[in-house]
């Protein structure tokens, strides 16, 4: 039996590529099909709806800009949730960390009014990341020390953050005026729009640069993706993160401090979510108000799952959901389909991706079982 056991499953390249990319694409396709069914059953025209969606997401440079705009924080929340998943942790409360990051950004932006851009914006970025990390710290410690499930704790902290922001923008941090919102951030505390980086004549000559509301935060998001990739592949931090995510017992036996790894992972996840909040405040809203970016945390979960927690895969996944979000307004306007259908499609994607992975895993497991011989 010793010889026959050495037979390994074929690892041809096309099969590997298919495995990595095929299932997410199939999941999205399936979700879109089921979405169309729902639309059709509800009396809407799916073709018209999707055409409008496409128009709203990709139909013009401004639309593409809107897609990029919406995708920017999703890259960051996707990275946040994905990084947590790599360590075996489900940071469902990324929303809360996002709020805290945004809060820090708004507050610091107001405090530092008058300082040059080169000082303010980097400071905001660092501080927001720290704020997000800090908000994840208690759930992290509770998970590491006591085993409290991070799904419940981060979810609770999410609600707490929401009420905190709600109180602040109606009270101590409120700008004068009728709306409960913080004061507007000045130019020195803003991330400029991409199209504002170019002169009028350039924009006239190259209209595809007229990207509407898309802002330079996208650069930050892309850098973060590279950063996460680097951490996971080349650092001991990333190695231990993955080890703990796969096998706690073996990691422990090898001398890895599981507790510390969990805390680090959740805090880094929180930091990335905090950055998402900062980017929203500093690049888009320029202030903070109640529910200023609801849903980005949850969409981040869909992004991470779709991308299978791969930092580079998260970029196209985020663009997909950004497109869905950007196009949903046009879809409602033109085809009458309620925007909430997007949530349904997101949920379906999560569900199908989750199911696909298991089917795949099951197939490879049976192969492995056969090779090592049934017990």
């Amino acid at each position, binding site marked *: 039996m010793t010889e026959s056991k050495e037979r390994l499953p074929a690892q041809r390249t096309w099969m590997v590529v298919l495995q990595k990319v095929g299932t997410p694409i199939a999941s999205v396709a399936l979700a879109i099909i089921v979405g169309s069914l729902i639309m059709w059953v509800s009396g809407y025209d799916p073709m018209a709806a999707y055409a409008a969606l496409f128009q709203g997401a990709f139909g013009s440079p401004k639309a593409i800009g809107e897609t990029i705009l919406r995708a920017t924080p999703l890259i960051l929340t996707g990275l946040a949730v994905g990084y947590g998943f790599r360590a075996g942790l489900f940071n469902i409360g990324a929303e809360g960390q996002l709020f805290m990051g945004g809060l820090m950004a708004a507050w610091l932006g107001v405090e530092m009014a008058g300082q040059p851009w080169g000082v303010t914006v980097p400071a905001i970025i660092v501080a927001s990341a720290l704020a997000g990390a800090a908000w994840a710290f208690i759930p992290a410690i509770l998970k590491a020390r006591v085993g409290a499930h991070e799904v419940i704790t981060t979810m609770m902290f999410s609600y707490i953050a929401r009420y905190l922001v709600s109180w602040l923008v109606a009270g101590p941090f409120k700008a004068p005026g009728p709306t409960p919102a913080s004061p507007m951030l000045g130019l020195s505390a803003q991330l400029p729009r991409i199209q504002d980086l170019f002169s009028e004549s350039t924009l006239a000559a190259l209209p595809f640069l007229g990207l509407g509301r898309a802002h330079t935060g996208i650069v930050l998001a892309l850098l973060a993706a590279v950063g996460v990739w680097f951490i996971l592949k080349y650092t001991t931090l990333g190695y231990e993160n993955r080890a703990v995510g796969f096998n706690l017992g073996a990691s422990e036996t*090898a001398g890895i401090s599981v507790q510390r790894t969990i805390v680090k992972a959740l805090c880094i996840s929180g930091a990335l979510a905090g950055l998402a909040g900062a980017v929203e405040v500093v690049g888009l809203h320029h202030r903070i108000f109640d529910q200023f970016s609801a849903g980005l945390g949850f969409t981040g979960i869909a992004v991470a799952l779709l991308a299978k927690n791969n930092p580079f895969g998260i970029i196209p996944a985020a663009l997909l959901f950004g497109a869905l979000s950007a196009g949903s307004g046009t879809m409602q306007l033109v085809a009458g389909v309620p925007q909430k259908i997007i949530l349904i499609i997101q949920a379906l994607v999560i569900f199908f991706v989750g199911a696909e992975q298991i089917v795949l895993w099951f197939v490879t497991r049976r192969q492995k079982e056969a090779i090592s011989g*049934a017990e």
Partner: protein
Amino acid sequence: MAVLELRDVTKVFPGVVANDKVSMTLGRGEIVALLGENGAGKSTLMNVVYGLLSAERGEILVDGEQVKIRSPRQAIDLGIGMVHQHFMLVEPLTVTENIVLGREPGRLGVIDMASARKRVAEISERYGLKVDPDARIRDLEVGLQQRVEILKALYQGVRILILDEPTAVLTPQEVRELFRVIRSLVAEGLSVVFITHKLEEVMAVADRIIVMRDGAVVGETRPSETDEVGLARMMVGRDVVLRVEKGAVSRGQTVLQVRDLVVKDDRGLDAVAGVSFEVCGGEIVAIAGVGGNGQTELVEAIVGLRRPASGTISLKGKDITDASARSSIEVGVSHVPEDRHRRGLILQFNLAENLVLGDHRVAPYAKLGIMRLREVTAMARKRIEDYDIRTPSEKIVASNLSGGNQQKVVIAREIGRNPELLVAAQPTRGLDIGAIEFVHRQVLAERAAGKAVLLISLELEEVLSLADRILVIYEGRIVRELTAGEADAETLGYYMTGGGGKKLDAETVPAPPSESEVGQ
């Protein structure tokens, strides 16, 4: 007419034929031993009979009639019962609850506990399998848990009983007790299939022996017609050296010193209750004992996975009592864990990543937190070659390797680190003969290189063939120390049960073995 017959049963998993046209019979009142090494297909075959797996081809006949067994429920209804190697017992529930699970007496859905307890007591009495019906499984020791498993099958009214590697966790005395039980069951009309890879047991209890290898039946014989050497040859297909050659090595300095060590288990009880011993360079000290007597906690304390309550552990004079797992590795303690899937390897990592596990923070594999993948790859390739790990590349994911090769990876990593002390816990569990030979050779090589080796094993054969000194552990204490020359299976078994077998029934406890009894 045979009470159970298999004709050309074939079971295939993707890539491997686990059972290849297997045919066998079981007569009424017969004890048939299904012999083969790990991976030969014996358990798979019986899982098919018990309805846990379905065969691609072949027929099963019970009492001459062909049947289709698609689930354990159907098997039980046909009178087939199985006691698995890893017990199917629910720990927090009581003995009675476990036994009646699935066939609970009662009306309208409410369980009649009194009636259940009565039936359990009846069966227990009838077959001589005494156990406390209200005890919780997690409080029972392994031998008693096995009794509950057998009672479960009897409660379900089986006529054919399949036992899968039942003696893996028993002492020689408990094994003899088990054989007595089997014989009394057979006297009551049951028929028994006994799966094992242990030659001496087969010779002791079987009426007929069916040998399997690589998924097929390679021979059928009776104890009167063969001997252990002959059986081994059938099992493996070539002449087998039953014991690895061990040369004489001079003992060096004391490497590991354990003094008055007390270690508590997860429930706060003393798992290790005051243990002292030493291991010197160039020697293999084995800790022999029935599972659950503190070996696991002792190992965990030594390698830094559990903090002792009191006492000291020192490595070459340096105190490592409270050292973490990481410090222990840094200081020179290597650990081959008893569960390679849960603790030894990360199955989703590739071989290179597994081979650097534990050393991934230090030079030359990492610098300032950045990993130096070139160095890791070079090391991995070298280890793969030095330890003859069968794989096309270091980038293969560990889950794709066979059990034997996986263990080679663990050993390559732990020994490759050039430790002062090697702690090997059940290093050959679940491995086939070739892999077992490899592991034994590696362990002996460490010894020859002047390293200290602490071996923890349930396999008495392994202990006797490898160890220079043997410490018997019982209820958290070292109750006896023997040199290799002084020890044999009977004596070890005697001390492993406390040198008097307090846990067994009085009538089955032997006196310390005399010369005439050895080799029964």
